[in-house]
């Protein structure tokens, strides 16, 4: 799934940093898992709006993953405030895993 954004360059930087956030059980980062849906940058208010999902709404690691995503974005863009919104519409499906993610899971 492609990430929707209003700023391609900053989105690339943000996604690169979010690749450090890993789902501990799967061992795969949240970007290649397809958990990030949208990343918008509000230059006037200096805010990052990140819309993401989890593999299941009741994921035991949910809190850890969302906190990590938020802190990572705050770390990469210290002048911005991150507003993280969680959605399950549409719900995550396996088809959202990137090609790199599939390669990783086939190896693991």
């Amino acid at each position: 799934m492609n990430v929707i954004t209003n700023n391609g360059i900053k989105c690339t930087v943000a996604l690169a940093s979010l690749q450090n956030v890993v789902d501990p059980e799967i061992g795969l980062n949240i970007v290649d898992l397809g958990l990030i849906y949208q990343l918008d940058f509000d230059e006037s208010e200096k805010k990052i709006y990140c819309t993401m999902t989890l593999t299941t709404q009741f994921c035991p690691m949910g809190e850890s993953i969302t906190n990590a995503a938020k802190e990572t974005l705050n770390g990469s863009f210290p002048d911005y405030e991150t507003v993280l919104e969680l959605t399950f519409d549409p719900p995550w499906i396996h088809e959202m895993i990137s090609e790199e993610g599939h390669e990783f899971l086939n190896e693991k």
Partner: protein
Amino acid sequence: MFTAIGNTAIVKTTSYKVVLPFYLYAAVAFLVATILLSVSAGDFTKHYFHPHTLAITHIMALGWGTMIILGASHQLVPVLIEGSLYSNTLAYISFISAAVGIPLLAYGFYVFNMGWPAQCGGLLVISAIVAYLLNLSISMAKSKHENVHAFFIFTAALWLLTTAAVGLLLVCNFTDSLLPENSLDYLPLHAHLGIVGWFLLLVTGIGSRLIPMFLISKYNNTTQLWWIYGLINGGLLSFIFLFLYTNSRVLLTFPLMAVTVAILLFGHFCYMAYRQRIRKKVDEQMKVSLLSVSMMLLPVIFLVITGVLLLVSASESVSLVTAYGFIIFFGWITAIILGMTFKTLPFIVWNKVYHHSNGKAKTPNPKDLFSNVIFKWMSAAYISGFVFFTAGILLQDTVVLQSAAVLLSVTSLLYNWNVIKLLTYKPVSV
């Protein structure tokens, strides 16, 4: 577009402080049971209604199987019922009551004192189940979601309460003659309420959620799970009716067939989840868990052989019945716990230790928090100990039984080693 629902949508995980005592208690109970097994191995050549055999069975069923399932289910409540656990206090009450009650009950059986130790122990175990059931009921009532797994876990808890109540009645029947027959005559009823109603229903309910989740499988079949639910409960209800109101052994094949079909359907469910997995490599813990699913058919085979012999010779084969009980408690129940402990416990510990470190620094994976080498040795000791002990019961050979009991003790020692390693884990940054 997406519908953002904010951070409130994340269901809070159950605190590790609630869950870890259950895991630790179960590990110690497994160790105690295998040590008693080594000391009393020769008793397994005698009738299964032997004080030592009864004590070991109850330590395995309650101290090991039930305590770890209670711990895991407190942790998994958010995943299974799709809502948060209602009360930590009720969970602590459940733990303390069971933790005190189980040794009292086991002691009562071991010295065959059916007076206050066994009766108080039984009452405390019932209190623990009531607290758990209350916690589960309110958690489910507060959850906005309904799913098949919640029905499995709730019904299983009701069967556990029934099993414990019947068990206490049988204990009291020794001293107060409350029932028309001897307690021994009701033993099959008590045992199958627990084995089928509690363990089988719960393992299929939790397993059908966790196995696809850990395999990262696309497979899901709710209709099949409802069939399993119906067949297990229908089979058990018909067994209770036939046991209490008829003398026909032939009719008892109907509940057996229902439960067998349920096990086969669950096996098919797990196989399809395995086939449709995204992560190709299956770790050792999942292999042991999947092995336990296939081991579910062993008791059915033993039960069929016992039933056929009973119809042909009209006398019960004691060694077959003892082996039947052994392969349930030391077989599939133990195998799935050995596998699933090292899928669930590392998560809980990881969440406790690295909750705030994800994304900031490279952290180890949950599977790196225990020793996989010890796990492999534990699995080897377990499989060989299990096979030899079953053979020892059937051959009525004390030397084989004692050797196998040592292997099972090694299994529990290695299991405890890894559990302690996890519980005492200190964070490191890689």
